[in-house]
């Protein structure tokens, strides 16, 4: 009898736990969708060799411009999302393409985040001539059109993924530096920063314990948004022929290759486009959700 009650209680607890999780997901739906999309993209990038059904580089002219399997009535096509202009499996190439996009996005953001955070901190916290110097530098940087800069650097040093990452990192530090500087200027007016000084904190300690934790959420949000932007920029550069080598599967490159076949084989351009859109959307949704979530005053 008691056992039966106990199992019932356990079951009830289980369902209530499930209910809680479901409730949480329902309340944070957009954030959860973003998270799922981002995790899916990262999963594809890491485990590409295991989940891709075909070798992304293996051309087979017999499968050239094959329709997606589920549309093909003749039953000739083997590829789920169809074949490209040299008969490679589109799905496998999209899965491998996630590697390039995420590598560029994450590494590029890492560089600009570190650079921008350090310069923004110095600029906002210490102020005076350092602030002037760094902000003027930022304005010069903002004046240079990104695509033009990329074209110049690529034509001098040649193309390559590491160059895209470095160019993006060196261009977008301005966004981080300006954001952090602005936040610090506001924070410095807060009495707890003055209090931190009054109770004997060193500059280093004030920055690490009082300023960084209070700007971290903004940095994180900007970083997720920036990853999305970098993925688009990498795709645009590759589309223009300034990105990764054509043999490496990348979403931008696939779009570029497909533009001659847009009318006859729409799937070559549509599916990589959807991949870009979903990933970018995922990062943006995640960023939005994090912004709401990380406000300490909103915590329930």
């Amino acid at each position, binding site marked *: 009898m008691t056992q039966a009650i106990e199992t019932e209680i356990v079951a009830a607890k289980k369902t209530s736990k499930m209910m809680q999780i479901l409730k949480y997901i329902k309340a944070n739906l957009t954030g959860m969708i973003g998270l799922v999309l981002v995790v899916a993209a990262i999963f594809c990038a890491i485990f590409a060799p295991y989940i891709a059904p075909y070798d992304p580089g293996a051309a087979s002219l017999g499968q050239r411009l094959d329709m997606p399997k589920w549309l093909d009535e003749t039953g000739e096509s083997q590829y789920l999302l169809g074949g490209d202009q040299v008969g490679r499996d589109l799905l496998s190439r999209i899965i491998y393409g996630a590697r390039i996009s995420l590598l560029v996005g994450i590494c590029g953001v890492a560089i600009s985040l570190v650079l921008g955070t350090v310069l923004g901190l110095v600029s906002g916290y210490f102020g005076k001539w350092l602030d002037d110097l760094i902000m003027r530098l930022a304005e010069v940087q903002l004046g240079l059109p990104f695509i033009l800069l990329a074209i110049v650097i690529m034509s001098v040093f040649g193309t390559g993924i590491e160059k895209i990452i470095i160019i993006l990192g060196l261009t977008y530090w301005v966004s981080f530096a300006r954001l952090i500087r602005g936040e610090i200027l506001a924070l410095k007016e*807060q*009495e*707890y920063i*003055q*209090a*931190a*000084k*009054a*109770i*004997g*904190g*060193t500059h280093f*300690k004030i920055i690490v*314990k*009082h300023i960084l*934790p*209070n700007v971290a959420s903004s940095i994180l949000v900007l970083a997720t948004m920036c990853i999305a932007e970098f993925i688009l920029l990498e795709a645009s550069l590759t589309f223009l022929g300034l990105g990764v080598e054509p043999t490496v599967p990348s979403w931008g490159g696939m779009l570029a290759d497909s533009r001659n076949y847009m009318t006859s084989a729409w799937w070559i351009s549509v599916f990589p486009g959807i991949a870009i859109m979903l990933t970018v959307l995922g990062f943006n949704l995640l960023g939005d959700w994090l912004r709401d979530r990380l406000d*300490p*005053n909103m*915590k329930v």
Partner: protein
Amino acid sequence: MVSPLLEVKHLKKYFNLKGSRADYLKAVDDISFTVNEGEVLGIVGESGCGKSTMGKTLIQLLTPTEGEILLNGENIANLSPKKVREKRRDMQIIFQDPFSSLNPRMKVYKIIEEPLVNFKIGTKEERKQRVYEVAKQVGLTQKQLDRFPHEFSGGQRQRIGIARALVSNPKLIIADEPVSALDVSIQSQVLNIMKDLKKEMNLTYIFISHDLSVVHHFCDRIGVMYLGKLVEVADKHELFSNPKHPYTKALLSALPKSHPSRKKERIVLRGDVPNPANPPSGCTFHTRCPNCMDICTVTPPTLKRMGEKHDVSCLLYE
């Protein structure tokens, strides 16, 4: 004879105004006073008269432009940043706004413990004991220390701020309008805690406020500030019963009457506080003074001893 704990001599804090090189804003202009150990000195004045700037300059959150700040006979003005940091163990500040004076991302325990960590006081266990002790003194339970500041009310937050200021056993506390952001019912509660702590820890306060009734309740001696200058300093009872400076008289006349039938003449000051970036010549108060004489527009007065423990800066008495 009690020795002065703090002696301020000709303290000045000028702010450079952007744009032109010659313009200063004289936020604190040539202020001298002493505070004895165990005393509470109140500083009153209108908003914008430089009270808070003076408080922050005393504790070196702002570097003084000129003058000496002697703490226990040692000049702490213009020390190296490292030395200043060591000196802060002896003097602490309680801020006005309890909602912006606590880091929202730190738990209350960490907030109160931080001065001890910064000054390298005690082992981890000893610090814990000390934090609990101070928390108890300001009326916080151990359980509450595990929470974040936003879970507390204004009065509770201010008590956390007080605990943080007191945890390192300072001698001098500068209280920068500590209760003006609080509800009246909470004000007395916080003031009583501050009073009790003063007895228990033998503290000395400099109590900055614009609220005369609070100052009357809390302080031993009162200094009146106008446009960055100290115009009158006197014992509390002396100042309230026998104000000398016309500005002090006007301030006191603005207090509500203690009895409806008691007749009291209200002195109403004309005009606004002049722009501190461009103060009037001579006595800075002459533009609004009901007793203004010709000489007042030319000669700036200095703080003169009028009686026992009563200093006034006014040409009427020279």
